[in-house]
């Protein structure tokens, strides 16, 4: 991997981490008045995907989409303003944290129903295939999605038509508070299950950003080359609560030991240490990155705070293409 990509991965991961931690820190102000699903601890897969995909590739995601949106090139100001419910938000206040969109960078939308965007991502790829556009469609999903019928229906059709789709699964082990052990039989691996549909599937450490990038780069090239869809599963871990800014280990649904073990494998810190050891970046470089990120975040929150709310009449618009309906 070239140093430039390594630095980009570190920058993007630091940026996602800092954005999420700032949301957590300021959530209690009650100005962000919508459910937010933070992905602190899961930054590596999003950053690697953002680096492996092109801006012209399309992507969809689910309820925990901040990182995917930012990594794909989405605008931080528009995202924070959306969470604040402001008219300057990426969905003009209609969507909030769970409904992010920035078509200018190929982020076609994230929605709140588990599995809901999987077939949409497959549909996005159909014109790509028919018109040989060289694009691919990336479907970000969590480990609960391969429990939904629509996921298997979608994978099957993508294989039938050999569509250019990257199914990208972040397995953080939990669906809300339900562990995989109550959702899948012992010993089953999602990537092995999905392989039964006749597509190449891969599995890896979701906290090793460079390894994820290497795997995805190879996969994206293959999909782009017309080899049909692929499924990638990366294991990672959600640090904070399922929904909201706090920690939820007090609930007892996961052990503190498990949590501490994953925290020791902090994907951001791991990459930062490795790149410093390898002399790809210096401590000063990291400080510069952090300063740039902090300034951007401060600006984005100020933008969100100072932006106007949508006018009340906007509650009745955007239902149909024209006013009638």
């Amino acid at each position, binding site marked *: 991997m070239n140093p430039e990509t390594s630095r980009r991965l570190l920058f993007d991961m630091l940026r996602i981490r800092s954005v999420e931690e700032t949301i957590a820190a300021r959530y209690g102000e009650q100005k962000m008045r919508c459910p937010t699903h933070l992905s602190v601890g899961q930054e590596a897969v999003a950053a690697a995907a953002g680096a492996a995909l092109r801006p012209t590739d399309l992507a969809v995601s689910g309820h925990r989409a901040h990182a995917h949106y930012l990594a794909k090139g989405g605008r931080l100001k528009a995202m924070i303003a959306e969470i604040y419910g402001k008219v300057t938000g990426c*969905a003009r206040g209609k*969507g909030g944290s769970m409904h992010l*969109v920035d078509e200018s960078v190929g982020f076609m*939308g994230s929605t709140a129903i588990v599995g809901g965007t999987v077939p949409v991502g497959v549909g*996005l790829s*159909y014109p790509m295939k028919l018109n040989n556009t060289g694009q691919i469609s990336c479907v970000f999903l969590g480990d609960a999605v391969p429990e939904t019928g629509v996921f298997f229906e*979608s994978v099957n059709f993508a294989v039938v038509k050999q569509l250019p789709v990257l199914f990208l699964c972040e397995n953080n082990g939990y669906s809300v508070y339900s562990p995989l052990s109550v959702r899948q039989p012992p010993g089953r691996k999602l990537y092995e299950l999905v392989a039964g549909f006749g597509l190449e599937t891969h599995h890896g450490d979701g906290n090793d950003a460079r390894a994820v990038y290497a795997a995805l780069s190879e996969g994206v090239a293959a999909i782009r080359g017309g080899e049909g869809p692929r499924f990638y599963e990366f294991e990672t871990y959600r640090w904070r609560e399922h929904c909201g800014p706090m920690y939820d280990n007090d609930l007892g649904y996961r052990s503190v030991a498990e949590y501490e073990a994953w925290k020791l494998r902090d994907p951001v810190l791991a990459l930062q240490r490795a790149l410093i050891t390898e002399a790809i970046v210096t401590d000063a470089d990291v400080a510069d990155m952090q300063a740039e990120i902090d300034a951007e975040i401060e600006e984005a929150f100020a933008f969100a705070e100072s932006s106007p709310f949508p006018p009340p009449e906007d509650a009745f618009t*955007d*239902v149909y293409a024209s006013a009638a*309906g």
Partner: protein
Amino acid sequence: MATSFAAAIRDGLATALAADDDVICFGLGTDDPKGVFGTTLDLHKQFGPDRVFDMPTSEAAMTGFAIGAALNGMRPVLTHQRLDFALLSLDQLVNNAAKWRFMFGGKRGVPITIRMIIGRGWGQGPTHSQSLQSWFAHIPGLKVVMPTTAEDAKTLLLGAIFDDDPVIFLEHRWLHNMKGEVPAGDVREPLGKARVVRSGDAVTIVAMSYMTVEALHAVDHLAAQGIACDLIDLRSIRPLDWPTVITSVQKTGRLLALDSGHLTGGVAGEIVARIATDHFASLKSAPQRLAAPDVPEATSPALTKNYHVRAEHIADAVGRMLGRDVETASLVAQRTFPHDVPGTWFSGPF
């Protein structure tokens, strides 16, 4: 030359496929030897397998697929041989198709058309006969179209395909063989306009889809007895053409709303409620409605005999509203084929 409703649908699909390369057409059996009751017959030969194709039995995924393809520039038409099968796709219809434009602040809509065929009689039974237009019409963001005539089948289908919103296009199986004049060419009817089929001043009868046919028999039978009714064929359930309904009620002072769906929570109830709440002063008598009973449709012909609203029930209701006795025995006597088929042309198997 008279054309059947089913042939008019096929004509509409072929016209749309020819007019715009972004139109695609798929569904279970789309390219099979029966071609969905003839409505898609051989279109794949003319337009190729990339644009007209069969699909896995995956209603939810294929609806989401249609949404994704639409977001990337296409105008997909998905067909379900029975409405009941489409229930597997409600999440995609309600949470994605209907909401996309709204939840992303108007960035992009979903110009998809979902055809669903409603069965009735001849043993269609509890899961092949449901007339659930009120479900879809309840969802802001969806449009719901129910043509009656062959002409409307083509022109409203073209209107639906080239409409920029998601449209649920409900075809009644009992209309597929009904014939009528159908205009040639790319004739797109905008959605949301009702048609006044018969004019009169006694009672306003609002109908949709196959109920319009039963209502026509009733209205013509009543006319011979000196009772002239306004008969409105809604054609579109959402948007609903309120001005046409209101204008008629203001003229007649009486409203009879018909519904092919169940009574509770149905479209007829909505029409009665809207007129009663907003135009009470126009009414000379309590508004009435006739709909399917609140039980599923059974399979045995013995159990469906009194299930559906027919012309004689409509004529009776009109008589009651006017305080007049009306004769219906001759209307019933005219029927030369069993109660559970739309005509002698229908002998199954599905």
